[in-house]
């Protein structure tokens, strides 16, 4: 660990429709599991295709094991990709599919056969050599696609939403298996997903992406507990972001909204009094206060129940939407009720405004 294997240096890319990547940089260590997390259109697939060499970049460099491969064609990069739709060759058997990379490298036939059967063993599809891709289920095709990539022992394995087409149960199971494979092989994984849960579950580090920029790169706990900006807080933790002005009282940092203020965790970066302040608070930490106590006013807009949690959508007088969630289903509150809410300073994290780009 700690030995860099892949480096992206300030990569930009524009298509006719506009700028997709706006100067992204990233260093991946050997054996690391890095996830590019973002909603569709954020540039994550383009990033992956640039690493694979299937797309060229306008400026910047791709460094693999210290070698600049920016202008190398995909077949000479030593990275392999698992495509979103698997891209299995429909006219070749499972064995021919998996062995294709080795066949091109002119490995002896016996060696290829052994490697293919080992790879199938590893993705838990032993004995599937003779099948055609059309005879496989979605999950099995997925495994064959992974086997076809790992059999070449790539320096870096690129995975483009590999579990996107699978149902929830299979996806959970494949998450665990992919993680196991990655540990077993010691290959660096660059993994793309728009599913924050998947990213938090599997990654060593997550790069949250929006509008062709990395909003934050960090370990899952860094991203989850200390989101750098409002977007990361909302996207990864589905947190509420409250906007107001900074104020100090008894040496403590406070968020002021209208005539109400509340203490927040001071990041210690010396925020000036009166400066705009953004505070992220996760829905489970929004507390309802008894009437009469000082707190932020809101009106209950909506009440729903999902995944064992009661979810209340509140609206403040200035139009901000706040989500509060509770375990259980009982709550006397109904839409239209006026409430007062607050939060514990320890759960209120100061974040930056979203990057302008």
């Amino acid at each position, binding site marked *: 660990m700690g030995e860099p294997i892949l480096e992206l240096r300030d990569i930009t890319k524009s298509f006719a429709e506009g700028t997709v990547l706006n100067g992204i940089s990233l260093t991946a260590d050997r054996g690391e599991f890095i996830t590019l997390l973002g909603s569709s259109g954020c540039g994550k697939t383009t990033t992956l295709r640039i690493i694979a060499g299937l797309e060229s970049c306008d400026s910047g460099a791709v460094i693999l094991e210290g070698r600049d491969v920016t202008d190398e064609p995909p077949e000479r990069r030593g*990275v392999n*990709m698992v495509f979103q739709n698997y*891209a*299995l*060759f*429909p006219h070749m058997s499972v064995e021919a599919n998996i062995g294709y990379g080795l066949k*091109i*490298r002119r490995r002896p036939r016996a060696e290829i056969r052994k490697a293919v059967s080992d790879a199938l063993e590893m993705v838990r599809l032993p004995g599937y050599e003779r099948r055609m891709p059309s005879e496989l289920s979605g999950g099995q095709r997925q495994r064959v696609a992974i086997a076809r990539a790992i059999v070449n022992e790539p320096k870096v394995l690129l995975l483009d939403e590999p579990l996107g087409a699978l149902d929830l149960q299979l996806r959970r199971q494949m998450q665990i298996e992919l993680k196991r494979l990655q540990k077993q092989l010691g290959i660096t994984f660059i993994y793309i997903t728009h599913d924050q849960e998947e990213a938090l579950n599997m990654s060593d580090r997550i790069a949250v992406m929006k509008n062709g920029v990395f909003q934050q790169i960090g370990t899952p706990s860094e991203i989850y507990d200390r989101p750098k900006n409002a977007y990361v807080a909302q996207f990864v933790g589905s947190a509420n972001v409250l906007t107001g002005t900074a104020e100090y009282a008894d040496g403590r940092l406070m968020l002021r909204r209208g005539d109400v203020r509340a203490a927040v965790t001071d990041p210690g970066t010396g925020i000036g009094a009166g400066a705009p302040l953004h505070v992220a608070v996760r829905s489970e930490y929004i507390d309802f206060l008894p009437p009469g106590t000082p707190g932020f006013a809101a009106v209950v807009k909506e009440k729903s129940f999902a995944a064992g949690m009661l979810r209340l959508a509140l609206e403040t007088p200035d139009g901000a939407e706040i989500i509060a969630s509770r375990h259980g289903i009982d709550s006397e509150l109904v839409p239209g009720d006026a409430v007062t809410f607050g939060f514990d300073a320890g759960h209120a994290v100061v974040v930056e405004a979203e990057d302008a780009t």
Partner: protein
Amino acid sequence: MKSRSRFPMIYLFVITVIMYLPILFVMIYSVNLSKISSVWTGFSLKWYRELFRDRNVGTALWNSLILGGVSSLAAAVIGTLGAIGTVRTGFRGKGAMEYIATLPMMTPEIILGMIFLAFFSLLGLPFGMTTLIIAHTAFCIPYIFMQVKARLAGMDKSCEEAARDLGAGRARVFFDITLPLIMPGIVSGMLLSFAMSFDDVIISIFVTGVSVNTLPILIYTQLKTGVTPKVNALCTLMFLATLLIVVLSALIGRLGNRKSPK
């Protein structure tokens, strides 16, 4: 409602009868004993026997087979490359190019025949098998072009990308991935081309020399001396052969579709 739903069936039946009744008559009269086509005197295969004994028919058949084979093969190469070029690259006037490529299909054959005649005389090419092959190749290209283009458009581009990602160079990707995947399109296009070439009279008459007869030309010239039952026999055989090719082409097309997922 139920009585109304019968109408399409009746309609279909009438159309089929109108289309195939003449062919049926030709088939029936090909096994007629009588020399006069319109009178039925009894079943006989003697016209087929006579047909097979006729030397001219043999050479004409051979010429037609060579012509169809060579020109559909040549058209396959040119048409496939053209289709790949238009689908996989963007250039100005691509739309116009696609339209122009299919234009020969819509041009009246008599016009095409005259164009070829004028063109070959201008070049000073001797009329014969060479000019026949060039002309047939030219009018067969659109059939291949259309079939392969449709096949390419429906093909998943990521398969080719995956092959490159696994270490294959551009040429290797073409032969390992692209070609096998578009092969059903090429083959069904070639069968269609062959059928088109095999029964062409008009263009062939314009561009053939005195020495080379194709089967359709032979039939056409024999008609001048009256329809003998021998011509009926020949027509029957040609119809069956063409039918076989068309059915084969459809089957191959469908087989190819079933093989690819989605």
